[in-house]
C-alpha cells in the first residue's frame, strides 16, 4: 500500500516537473523519473507472488514473476535512449539560442 502510494508520488513528481519546469534538461530529468516510477511499480508488484529470483537451480524455490522483469529491461533501455536524444536536442537548442528555457526559445523562434 505504502509502496504503491510512493510510486504514484514518484510519478506525480516527474509529471509535475515536466509540466512546470521550463528548463529543457529538467524536462529530461522529469521523463527519467516518470520512467523509473513505472519500472519500480512493475518489479515490486511482480515480486508479490514469490520470494526467489527467477534463476533455476535448487529445489523448492518460489519464483517471482520473471515477465515484468524482462519487460522492464526493455523499458529502462528505452528510457535512457529517450534521455540521450532529448539531451542532444537540448544541446543543439542551447548552442543556437544560448538558453535552455523552452518558453524563451519558443518566443525567439516565433520572432525569426
Amino acid at each position, binding site marked *: 500500500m505504502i509502496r504503491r502510494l*510512493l510510486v504514484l508520488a514518484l510519478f506525480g*513528481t516527474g509529471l509535475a516537473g515536466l509540466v512546470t519546469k521550463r528548463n529543457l534538461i529538467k524536462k*529530461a530529468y522529469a521523463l527519467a*523519473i516518470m520512467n523509473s516510477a513505472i*519500472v*519500480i511499480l512493475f*518489479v515490486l508488484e511482480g515480486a508479490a507472488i514469490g520470494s526467489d529470483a527467477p534463476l533455476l537451480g535448487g529445489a523448492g524455490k518460489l*519464483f517471482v514473476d520473471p515477465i515484468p522483469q524482462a519487460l*522492464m529491461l526493455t523499458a529502462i533501455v528505452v528510457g535512457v535512449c529517450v534521455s540521450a536524444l532529448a539531451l542532444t536536442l537540448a544541446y543543439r537548442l542551447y548552442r543556437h539560442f544560448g538558453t535552455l528555457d523552452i518558453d524563451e526559445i519558443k518566443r525567439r523562434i516565433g520572432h525569426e
Partner: protein
Amino acid sequence: MIEAILAIVVAASIYAILARDLLHGVIALSVTSVLSASIFFLASAPDVAITEAAVGAGLSTIIFVWAIRNTERTDRS
C-alpha cells in the same frame, strides 16, 4: 526496508526537479538510480538491478553530465 528506500528515492527525485544547480540534480538522479537498483535487488530482480545500475547510474549520468558541461549549470527559470 523497501518502503524506506523508496521514500528516499521520492525525496531525491523531488530535489532533482527543484534544484537550481543542474549538476546537483544529476547527482540526486544517479542516487535514485543506485537506490532503485538496490530495491530491485531486494525484490529478487537481479537482472533489472544490474541494468539499472549500468544504465541509470552509469550511462545516463554520463550523458546528463555531458549535456550540463556543454550548456549551463543553473536552471535560471
